């Protein structure tokens, strides 16, 4: 099993989630994060003092999945989150040793 992590633009969350759902993903977890990368941040000015804010608001998605669904998850995220502009974000795939559904105690593929 795998854990897919994706950093995406916040306004893409709904689209990505809906597409993943359609692709057969039964669950995911999202969090608000701040990203630093090639994408420029912005300047804020308070009473004449300027502050460079390097961090950009992003959403971090986490999907636990069995290996069969992995390619389609990656391609779905790529397709829906892409705008072509810097800051579209990244996807990472991590190995997972076990997954447990708390409610039932199911393990592994069943639990996803």
């Amino acid at each position: 099993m795998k854990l897919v992590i994706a950093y995406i633009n916040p306004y893409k969350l709904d689209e990505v989630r809906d597409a993943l759902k359609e692709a057969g993903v039964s669950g995911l977890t999202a969090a608000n994060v701040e990203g630093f990368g090639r994408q420029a941040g912005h300047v804020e000015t308070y009473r004449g003092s300027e502050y460079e804010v390097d961090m950009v608001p992003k959403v971090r998605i986490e999907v636990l999945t069995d290996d069969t669904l992995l390619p389609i998850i990656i391609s779905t995220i790529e397709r829906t989150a892409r705008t072509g502009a810097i800051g579209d974000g990244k996807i990472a795939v991590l190995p997972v040793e076990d997954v447990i559904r708390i409610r039932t105690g199911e393990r592994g593929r069943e639990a996803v």
Partner: protein
Amino acid sequence: MNSGDTAWMLMSSALVLFMTPGLAFFYGGMVRAKNTLGMLMKNYVAMGLVTVTWIVVGYTLAFGTDLGGGMLGGLDYLGLKGVAIDIAKGEQAGAIHGATVPDAVIMVFQMMFAIITPALISGAIAERMKFSAWAVFIAIWSIVVYAPVAHWVWSAHGFIFEHIKAVDFAGGTVVHINAGAAALAAVLIIGPRLGFRQSPIRPHSLPLTLLGAGMLWFGWFGFNGGSSFGANALAVNAFIVTQIAAGVAGTAWLLMEQFQHGKPTTLGFASGAVAGLVAITPAAGFVGYLAAVAIGVAAGVVCYLALQIKFALNFDDALDVVAVHLVGGILGSLLTGVFSESRINPSVLDGLFFGGGSTQLIRQTIAVVVAFGFSFIISFVLLKLVDAVIGLRITEAEERRGLDISLHEEQSYALTE
């Protein structure tokens, strides 16, 4: 000069000024967090710009000696010349409608109306309009749209007042229809927000909206109560019907929600109350308590239903200025012709409901049409001009990032430090 009346007019002026921050929060809570300051700013800046335009030319165009035909005031008060308090000469009072308070206090009371009226428009163009274009627009609008309409309706020789004989106690036409018509024009020109009707655009802080509604309700006692120009029986009447209409309309809106969706909402109560306040505004000095109940019910129900207009016509009146202020203002102005009582205010005919026939209602209708037409047309032209010269709308990237950072280089909340 009567000190009690003056005390009340000073207080009323302060209350009306307080409504602009109130409106800012009412609106500000309804936008997304990234646009909060952009929204607040479009209201607050009216307290700066319109103060200036009003003292320079707005007041004299509205309340200066009529130039003839009741169309516009002359320039006798240009730069507030002649309005100053002159202790040595004795205070001037009574120039405006024979009030018992210094003319100057009426000038400043009216200034507060001139400030909040363009601010009302900001709800319609929320989350997508340039600040520079907004600033230029409201400065000019306060002169070329607000001042003339105020003259027509509230100046002793204004043609709506003197010739059409329509009445507007505290601003149904001058404030609400006027701003509502301009809002409609603005929405048609500026177009919908990115994602309108596609993705949810939720209020970011309803507590702020509720706070704003509370401030508005509080301030409205000055708005309507002060429009009698003194702490007199008419003020008391206006005060009471204001409270009744607000409370009843808020309740009526809740009941509509309960019937349609099964859940009453806080935004609904606040919206209903504001709709009630809008609708009672033109009527406050002419109608009695039970009429206020009727107007409140009508405002709650009709403005609630009017929300559908924007979906039917597919235009993005972001914070429902048309449904609340334009529709509410028209409703109140017409119902004034239905429920007015000469017993309460001898300067008005009895309305339709009190056996006075349809005369007053017809007058009211004419005034509504004239005010709406004028405001819509001039606002439309003005906005087109501003669009051509400055551009009304921010870029897509700016809209995505939000007005706060894009326009003001500020962030509304930084709660994690």
